[in-house]
């Protein structure tokens, strides 16, 4: 078990994390059929491969990576939407993955999730009031007038209006639907909000509205957040600390300012260089990483980024590089960092 980055400044006492993920893994068997299995052995996709990190109370962790890195799978593992194949997820010290369903159910109140697609994450046959109200009824036991009143408060808190309770999701724009999804997620007053690419499907001006909303709600209510995105600039706006994922592993983890000021892993450097700024004065950097993101199927030992890495050497392909602190609070999985 290794230490995970703490967002607090060095002179504050050590805080007990709200969430501690330890060695979490999820492997999918994607062998096409019986004959393939007999002839070539099973094909296993190591979607999430032994990752560890912590989230402190009130902190926002940005989980960053491109498609196939395992960040969305991680979100689903933490909330038990899919089952894990290894590791622990400790919520206030208790392993939520090991609990029986009955014991876990009330904890859903504490960990809520907002998804990327505002069009498929809301039940089209329910009115907005019912969608948000259901969460309140189940997790807070509210009924009748108290339920109705609290539902309206939740909608107003995300910038919608009371009469929206009667409408159906299809009557709203993408940005408004994300607000509804956020209202639903925050209704039971969770300690942890997981936002899986919440603004990626939205237009730029609407993205900004939703990001500002998340930021101000966080300031008011002090919940922790895991913000998942492939867009580093968006993550920079909200995150206190950042973990970069590649092919199922965390390759770098540090407080946000440190990561942007001094990225240590070649993949993080490539991600930063690949950003396109709307500033014509900013120098355009050519991306040094060649090829496509690695898909970790039956991975061989060695760094999974080696085949794309501009500074890879022979040793890189021999053993998995451990995730280690090369500087205070700054961990990297690279033997050349």
């Amino acid at each position, binding site marked *: 078990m290794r230490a995970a980055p703490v967002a607090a400044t060095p002179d504050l006492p050590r805080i007990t994390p709200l969430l501690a993920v330890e060695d979490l893994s999820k492997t999918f068997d994607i062998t096409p059929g019986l004959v393939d299995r007999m002839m070539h052995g099973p094909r296993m996709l190591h979607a999430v491969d032994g990752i560890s990190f912590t989230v402190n109370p009130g902190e926002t962790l940005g989980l960053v990576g491109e498609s196939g890195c395992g960040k969305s799978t991680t979100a689903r593992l933490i909330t038990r939407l899919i089952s894990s194949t290894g590791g622990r997820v400790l919520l206030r010290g208790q392993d939520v993955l090991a609990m029986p369903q009955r014991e876990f159910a009330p904890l859903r109140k504490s960990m809520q999730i907002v998804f990327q697609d505002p069009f498929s994450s809301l039940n089209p046959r329910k009115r907005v009031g019912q969608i948000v109200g259901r969460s309140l009824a189940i997790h807070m036991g509210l009924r009748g007038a108290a339920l109705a009143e609290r539902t309206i408060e939740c909608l107003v808190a995300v910038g919608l209006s009371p009469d929206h309770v009667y409408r159906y999701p299809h009557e709203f724009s993408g940005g408004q639907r994300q607000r509804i999804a956020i209202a639903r997620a925050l209704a039971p007053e969770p300690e942890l909000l997981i936002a899986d690419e919440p603004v990626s499907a939205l237009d*730029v*001006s609407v993205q900004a509205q939703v990001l500002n909303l998340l930021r101000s709600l966080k300031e008011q209510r002090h919940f922790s957040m895991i913000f998942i995105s492939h867009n580093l600039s968006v993550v920079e706006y909200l995150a206190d600390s950042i973990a970069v994922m590649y092919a199922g592993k965390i390759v770098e983890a540090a407080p946000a300012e440190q990561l942007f000021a001094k990225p240590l892993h070649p993949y993080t450097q490539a991600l930063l260089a690949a950003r396109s*700024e*709307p500033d014509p004065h900013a120098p355009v950097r050519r991306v040094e990483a060649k090829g496509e993101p690695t898909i970790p199927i039956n991975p061989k030992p060695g760094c999974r980024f080696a085949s794309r890495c501009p500074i890879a050497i022979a040793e890189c392909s021999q053993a998995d590089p451990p995730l280690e602190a090369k500087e205070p609070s700054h961990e990297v999985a690279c033997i050349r960092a």
Partner: protein
Amino acid sequence: MEVIGLHVQFTTPRGVINAVNGVSFTLEKGETLGIVGETGSGKSVTAFSLLRLVSNPGRIVGGAIRFEGQDLLSLSERNMRGIRGREIAMIFQEVMTSLDPSYTVGDQLRELLQVHKGHRGREAQAAVIDLLTRVRIASPETVVDRFPHQLSGGMRQRVMIGMALACEPRLLIADEPTTALDTTIQAQILDLLDDVQSELGMAMVFISHDLGVVTRVSDRIAVMYAGRFVEMGDKFQIFDDTLHPYTRGLLDAIPRSGSKTRPLQPVQGTVPDLHHPPSGCPFHPRCARAEARCEIDLPPFQEWRPGHWAACHFAGDFDRSSPSPGEVG
């Protein structure tokens, strides 16, 4: 290329909308014009119009599109076909518009080269490998025997670029070619387009909703809103001397490096329904600078500085008053 007063209408069950409502611009040889806009701005329709690819329920109803002196809108379909793919090529966001899923990449490229350049047999095969190498596909000998679905998104995009460049067109129209790709792959493709453009001396019209990407590839940028250009200039003018409030809004709404301390200032409200466009300036309901006049008079798209155009009564003369956090939108 010279586009003058382009008008494209779409007939929908709810009525007729002006998807492109009087767009004009020029493009010099070797130059890249980036057209940026959000959903419903009309940028993709504009792109398709340049190659007369707009079909039912859409129709080009007005304007002129001159390419090297020739008015494309007055050509016969037969002559237009001679231009498409040869002199003017196009690449799309959805790669499968160009690639047939039932044939291998090699077969499709060979056919293309045979038809357009008259290559035969082994010569065609060599030309195919050469093309794939030019778009930086590793191990092209393996890729020729693959079907499109067996390739990753980035590779398919490279194949599509290869196809578009096979005839060394003088103009490439790129409609959101990198939007669906991962960040590092997107950057690779943009670098590739940059190199290829310099090699061929090719002009490009690059369409995207991403102002960062557009800035990276373009010399000049046009900002589009509700079917019209609201601002156009070289990329430094757009950024350093922004004339239109919507452009300013887009710039302020994008999180940038080092922006953590500065709150994002989103553009309030939503894009208009083109069935019931606002009177006067289409942006006025969302504009912090709007006055009574903006509701009545449509501001003309005019040249406020050399080479820098805008459609606003108060071009450049606006100040964002105290921003309010995101509201109903």
